[in-house]
């Protein structure tokens, strides 16, 4: 395992380990549109990276390439020393190590909350049902929706659904968690309950890559902020530096629009 080489990271909130994720010269086109241009990013175990940027800058696409929900044209993505496989069982195995939380929750509509959380451990990890149920209930307790276990997703509020989605990912004991705009589809009063869960995860040492517009979360929990614009990583720095003293014009322009 390669030692983690800090890029221009600045001070860190908590201790981080060796490199767990490495994107090297990643390129992707959607037809004519060059959505990812020469993306290089190294993430250490335990690090929380927040990806910011205007809409259409490619930040969601970047997030989705890491567990290959989007394919890439060239470059390499390496997770824990293994290059991301392109197909089949090997890819499924690797995806199990990378949790993903979606903007639209995507809970399995035909399964109860408890079954949603148990499906991965039982079918992928082949754990006994009783054991999987026990840890699923613990996880639901941890995200504060234990009393909803026997309901169906449509019966829960957006905030509750998103917390279940986080529990569903955590049930796989992932090495990395990806968050693709996890609070963008929520009513304003429900944003905080989801962010609270995410902050506690970050404090607990989970490796997280978070695409979000929540500047408060970035300030509070991020080790590092990555700013993207037009498919390129324009700036990488610690949150304090990024918010108070951005170097690029595009970052200044972006911050000017969102921070009043």
């Amino acid at each position, binding site marked *: 395992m390669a030692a983690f080489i800090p890029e221009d990271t600045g001070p860190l909130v908590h201790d981080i380990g060796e490199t767990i994720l490495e994107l090297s010269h990643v390129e992707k086109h959607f037809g004519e549109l060059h959505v990812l241009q020469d993306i290089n990013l190294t993430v250490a175990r335990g690090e929380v990276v927040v990806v910011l940027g205007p809409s259409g800058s490619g930040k969601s696409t970047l997030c989705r390439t890491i*567990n290959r929900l989007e394919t890439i044209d060239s470059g390499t993505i390496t997770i824990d020393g293994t290059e991301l496989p392109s197909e089949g069982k090997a890819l499924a195995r690797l*995806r*199990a190590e990378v949790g993903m939380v*979606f903007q639209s929750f*995507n809970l399995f*509509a*035909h399964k109860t909350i408890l079954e949603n959380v148990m499906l991965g451990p039982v079918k*992928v990890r082949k754990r006994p049902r009783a054991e999987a149920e026990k840890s699923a209930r613990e996880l639901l307790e941890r995200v504060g929706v234990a009393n909803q276990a026997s309901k169906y997703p*449509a019966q829960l509020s957006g905030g509750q659904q998103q917390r279940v989605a986080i529990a569903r990912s955590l049930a796989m004991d992932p090495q990395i968690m990806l968050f693709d705009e996890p609070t963008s589809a929520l009513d304003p009063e429900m944003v905080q309950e989801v962010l609270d869960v995410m902050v506690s995860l970050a404090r607990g040492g989970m490796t997280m890559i978070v695409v979000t517009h929540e500047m408060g979360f970035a300030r509070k929990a991020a080790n590092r902020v990555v700013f993207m614009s037009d498919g390129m990583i324009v700036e990488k720095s610690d949150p304090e530096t990024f918010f108070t003293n951005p170097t690029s014009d595009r970052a200044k322009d972006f911050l000017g629009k969102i921070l009043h």
Partner: protein
Amino acid sequence: MSELAQLMRQYDVLGGFWMTIKLTVVSALGSLILGVIVVIMRISPVKAFQLFGKGYVNVIRNTPLTVIVTFCALAFYNVLAWRLAGPDARSSVQLFWWGVVALSVYHSTFVAEGIRSGINTVPPGQAEAARSIGLTFGQTLSQVILPQAVRGSVTPLGNTLIALTKNTTVVSAIGVAEASYVMKNMIEFSPNFIYAIFILMALGFVILTLPVGMLVSWASTKLAVQR
């Protein structure tokens, strides 16, 4: 009324409808199995399977059933002498099974398209979430996509089953003694009862298909997935 009773005594009407039911049930199972295989090919990530599935559906669906039925009987049974029911079975049994094959192959295309339309009602995020927790292609289908697709497929599958029930009449062309075969005999030998014969046949098929339609409406409400 007495005419109907006399017809029922004289000809094996119930036997005819029993053959219709046997053809329907066995072909429904056959077309369901074939249809599921075809639809999995169509949505699989392997390009060759997708093309085969698409080609199969488009060729078979657009061929008249009569052509498929007579082709099976004449080419496979008469000329090539493939005996589906074993070497010793009687010709009527052999032709029954060739009829089942033709009906299954033909209706499997409608089954495949029905299930595919059901799959299209499942939001793509469901498959993404399933893949993101590490489920394989097969697990994603069996655990997440198909259980939700069933609801959207119930109505088209029910329509296909009703069509299949009535389309079994086509195999009378190869001499399988189902209801319409009996009807032709009745018209031939008791032409003065023509109205009674038609009413008897229409009634028989309605009795067979009406419950299917009712069951389908009930099931599609029952299986609804809340979003």
